[in-house]
């Protein structure tokens, strides 16, 4: 009987994590939209879930869709420096990185809406669980 309870707990956890992922992405998109409308951000950022990069897998990774992708609506190819800057700002926020990792993301991707190039980071390299 305890094993059935554990199985049921896992299903609930899965749905709870899924809900948290959706809320996190919605929160980011809402903030990005507000910043763009208020003129604080010159371009619009949009977060979405992507397939991720399998070699970056860690113990919390989702089996499918483990990438956190930020799309920059810039209208042309972003320079590497700008792409890296946006990625660094995300990675500098320890709380966000830790939250992303436990919610099953393992890859951060930043790219422009135009062009084929972007940057990706392994989130595992930026977590500091147990150090704070």
């Amino acid at each position, binding site marked *: 009987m*305890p*094993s*059935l*309870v*554990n*199985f*049921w707990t*896992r299903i609930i*956890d899965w749905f709870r*994590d899924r809900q*948290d992922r959706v809320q*996190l992405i919605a*929160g*980011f998109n*809402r*903030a*990005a939209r*507000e*910043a763009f409308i208020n003129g*604080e*951000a*010159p*371009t619009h*950022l949009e977060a979405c879930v992507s397939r991720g990069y399998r070699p970056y897998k860690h*113990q*919390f990774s989702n089996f499918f869709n483990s990438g956190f992708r930020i799309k920059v609506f810039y209208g042309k190819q972003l320079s590497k420096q700008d792409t890296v*800057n*946006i990625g*660094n*700002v*995300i990675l*500098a*926020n320890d*709380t*966000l990185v*830790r*939250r992303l*990792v*436990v919610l099953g993301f393992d890859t951060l991707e930043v790219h422009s809406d135009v062009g084929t190039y972007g940057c990706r980071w392994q989130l595992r390299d930026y977590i500091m*669980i147990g150090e704070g």
Partner: protein
Amino acid sequence: MLLGRSTKYDDKRSRIKQQVKSEGDIDFGNIVNSAFGAEALYKELICKCHPDRFAPDINKVAVANDITERLGKHKNDIKKLKELKVEAINKLNINL
């Protein structure tokens, strides 16, 4: 039934998850603003607050050292950079 087996590994995993989820809200607005404004503000502050600019005054050099150290720590956080800007204006008497 095999799926339902609980292990020590699972317990540790769920404990870490709970700990991270309870860390509080994330300020997404600050993150988005930092993505575009933090670098320029950091560069401006790091130039104006460089300790060598206050060389003869030992007290100001100490304050400038402290501020530049914290600038490096928070270079991607525009909220913290704005607080440091106010502190630099008040303590170092610089025009920004």
